[in-house]
């Protein structure tokens, strides 16, 4: 993926122009009307979340459709979905940095921003699901008067460490990469307010050679740590399922299956955001058709790897020969929730096949629709994994069903507001494409041109 004969960015633009263009987005915001419209929509969703959480805290988790046996449904299903989306941001900025895939430079900033807020959306779900969320602090090891400690041999306890670590490392990595760009925006800022804001957030960065060399080392090493971190976090999430003995969950394919599915859904959302932002802010010179082409290829590759997980899951059940495993397989293919299984297959893998054609990958609209289909498909997949395994337990006497209630849906749509509001604020106030990395790439391309 790294060796490309053609330039990824049009080399006829000067680095000064690019810097002006990108710092100009927060400083002289070009798209007020659309931004305000999007913000109003996002705020309405956020209000919906507030209302839902208030209702939840007042009346308890009984307002959701969960029950025994389906005690994990929307809360954990959406938790996995959001967290998976977040992972693509880290993979783009860290993994592709280490492999020297310079096309990431136009995508990494907003992908990382997406990661941060997706992880927050994911993180609130298990807390809401606690039933008594005010006892959240019981998850932390503190010398309690009760004399008990958290149980570190349980995946449920690993979870909070994994997610909080992921959130903190993502935040630190995002901010470290942002510092030089905040300094660039500070130096272009004309109004007092922006000078103060960027002056403080840039931490006094001055681009000194000694600073850059320390910064580069810290940045690359943190990226090197972030890649195994992503893999470990979603593997750990999959262990929430695989470490139990529930049929349909108790499988060794789960960690890679979850990680790849996470990357798949995440790259779909990155594509959606890339296409939206590029048309919104006229960034065609930086997010080129070449980028969409590459995103389409990555989406296709991760999609096919996820499809392998589906195949292996079926094989796993057949090979085990366990009666309950077989029953769960039949339930998935033909049970009451078969629509989630076939829905996942159709939305995830059917439109995806169009990405074999380059003309589709290079067309913004086609890639956008396929990406939306993948986001929906992966949402259905998480639904399927949760509900089809739980609704028919080992004992026939404890079989049940799950139907999402209004509050299930309202909380879910509300988290989309929780994602969009800070994301819109971020694209309003920070350079949404990494300026110095784009300049560096342009400089290299121009150097090659001139000999």
């Amino acid at each position: 993926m790294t060796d490309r004969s053609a330039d990824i960015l049009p080399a006829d633009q000067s680095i000064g122009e690019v810097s002006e263009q990108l710092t100009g987005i927060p400083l002289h915001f070009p798209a007020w009307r659309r931004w305000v419209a999007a913000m109003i929509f996002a705020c309405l969703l956020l209000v919906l979340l507030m209302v839902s959480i208030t209702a939840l805290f007042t009346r308890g988790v009984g307002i959701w459709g969960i029950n025994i046996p389906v005690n994990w449904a929307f809360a954990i299903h959406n938790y996995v979905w959001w967290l998976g989306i977040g992972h693509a941001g880290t993979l783009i900025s860290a993994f592709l940095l280490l492999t020297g895939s310079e096309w990431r430079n136009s995508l990494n900033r907003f992908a990382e921003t997406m990661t941060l807020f997706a992880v927050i959306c994911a993180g609130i779900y298990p807390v809401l699901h606690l039933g008594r969320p005010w006892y959240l602090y019981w998850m932390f090891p503190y010398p309690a008067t009760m004399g008990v400690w958290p149980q570190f041999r349980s995946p449920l306890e690993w979870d909070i460490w994994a997610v909080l670590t992921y959130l903190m490392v993502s935040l630190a990595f995002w901010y470290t990469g942002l510092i030089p760009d905040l300094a660039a925006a500070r130096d272009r800022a004309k109004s007092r307010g922006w000078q103060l804001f960027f002056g403080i957030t840039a931490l006094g960065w001055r681009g000194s050679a000694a600073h850059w060399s320390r910064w580069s080392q810290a940045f690359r090493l943190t990226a090197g740590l972030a890649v195994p971190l992503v893999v470990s976090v979603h593997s750990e999430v999959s262990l929430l399922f695989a470490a139990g003995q529930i049929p349909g969950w108790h499988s060794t394919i789960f960690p890679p299956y979850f990680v790849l599915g996470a990357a798949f859904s995440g790259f779909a959302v990155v594509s959606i955001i890339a296409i939206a932002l590029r048309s919104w802010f006229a960034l065609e010179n930086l997010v080129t058709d070449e980028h969409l082409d590459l995103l389409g290829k990555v989406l296709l590759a991760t999609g096919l790897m996820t499809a392998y997980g589906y195949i292996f899951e079926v094989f796993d059940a057949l090979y085990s020969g366990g009666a309950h495993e077989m029953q769960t397989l039949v339930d998935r293919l033909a049970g009451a929730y078969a629509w989630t299984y076939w829905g996942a297959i159709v939305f995830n893998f059917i439109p995806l096949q169009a990405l074999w054609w380059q003309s589709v990958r290079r067309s913004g609209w086609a890639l956008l629709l396929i990406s939306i289909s993948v986001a929906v498909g992966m949402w259905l997949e998480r639904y399927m994994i949760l509900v089809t395994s739980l609704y028919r337990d080992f004992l026939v006497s404890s079989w049940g069903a799950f139907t999402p209630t209004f509050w299930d849906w309202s909380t879910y749509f509300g988290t989309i507001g929780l994602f969009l509001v800070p994301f819109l604020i971020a694209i309003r106030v920070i350079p949404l494409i990494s300026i110095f990395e784009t300049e560096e790439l342009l400089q290299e391309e121009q150097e090659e041109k001139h000999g």
Partner: protein
Amino acid sequence: MAERVYGLLAEFDSPETLITAARDARDAGYRRLDAFTPFPVEGLSSILGIPRPRISRVGLIGGFGGAAVALLMQCYVNYDYPLDVGGRPLYAISAFAVVMFELTILFSALSMIVAMLWQNGLPRLNYPVFAARRFSLASKDRFFLCVKGDDEAFEPGKTAAFLTKAGALSVELVPS
């Protein structure tokens, strides 16, 4: 030196001219050099004689620290409140591995970033070079070489003439 001077700041329009000038300055005997660039320029710090950063060691120590904290914490918790779950081992290293791994990465990453800021002397609100007229371009498309005033070979007039000869677009004296 009568008046206190931070140094002389010379402006260049490309990384190549900056590197050539930096090399010339080293050859001319200047030792207290720094450069200000919009993006990291490869090979520049070795030409300027800036020692290789040692952030990686901090990261290594942080990583071992995180692993040790996680292991000791989990062992102590199980020692202080032993819970027999079907006869499974209390000190289950395989079960402790996940939190150990997470804290290794957390401590390592955060310690490196804190060390980077600390060694760079950031955050700080002001710095002498910000007073230079054209310095704001250092975050855009200009590349600055700085010969510091405490360099033994530094003489304002001679050094400025040297920098102009090296191809600088502008040369400015920065007060400290």
